[in-house]
């Protein structure tokens, strides 16, 4: 028996390997879908004028996977036509300009997958236990805080 290639898939991956947008888009391709919407988050080389020389991510891996699955469940409740969802997040050292996160979502028509991708990345920043440290040229380092996170300095305002 071959698996039904068109049955909905939730693909979640946390990895120390370099991310590939081709792999993500291929993983959500399906014959009945006219749209694949993608978001690629990349690492920046400056923060408030300071040169960033290295970025490093760490995760509470099993809980991060659980929270990513919850996002998939929410997407399917809100946009029932969404077919496949792929969320990949990189861990460890990520060189500047490389992807730290890629989201790919397919749906028969573009509106649903576009909205779902936006929801996915916004929710990921608010709820998935992953942390980023920026290391600056001055050798200082700082743990970042997403404004979407409800218990961050910005999120509490």
């Amino acid at each position, binding site marked *: 028996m071959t698996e039904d290639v068109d049955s909905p898939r939730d693909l979640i991956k946390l990895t120390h390997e370099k991310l590939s947008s081709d792999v993500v888009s291929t993983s959500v391709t399906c014959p009945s879908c006219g749209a694949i919407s993608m978001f690629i988050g990349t690492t920046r080389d400056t923060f408030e004028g300071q040169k960033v020389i290295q970025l490093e991510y760490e995760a509470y891996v099993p809980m991060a996977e659980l929270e990513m699955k919850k996002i998939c469940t929410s997407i399917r409740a809100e946009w029932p036509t969404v077919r496949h969802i792929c969320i990949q997040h990189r861990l460890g050292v990520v060189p500047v300009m490389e992807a730290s996160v890629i989201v790919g979502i397919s749906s028969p028509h573009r509106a649903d997958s576009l909205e779902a991708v936006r929801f996915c990345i916004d929710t990921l920043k608010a709820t998935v236990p992953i942390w980023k440290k920026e290391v600056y040229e001055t050798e200082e380092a700082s743990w970042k805080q*997403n404004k979407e996170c409800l218990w961050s300095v910005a999120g509490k305002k």
Partner: protein
Amino acid sequence: MISEVSVLYFAKGAELTGLKSETVKLPSELTTLQLWQELEGRHPKLSVIREQVVLAVRQEYVALGDQSVSLRDGDEVAVIPPLSGG
């Protein structure tokens, strides 16, 4: 009643405690605020993140407050500083 739980630290929390994880004996019934106070008592440096932290108990978020939690031997508790994934 006392339970032996494993406590995980991440990001700033791991830097402040110098630990990624430890096994801790804690009261089996306590509020989430008391749970935090137990951890801060072990690691006073954690006080700097007190205003920006939540806990996870068995991989579910809990805010610091008067909500009570039951801890069993082997449970996993995590200190969760502000998130910065993405």
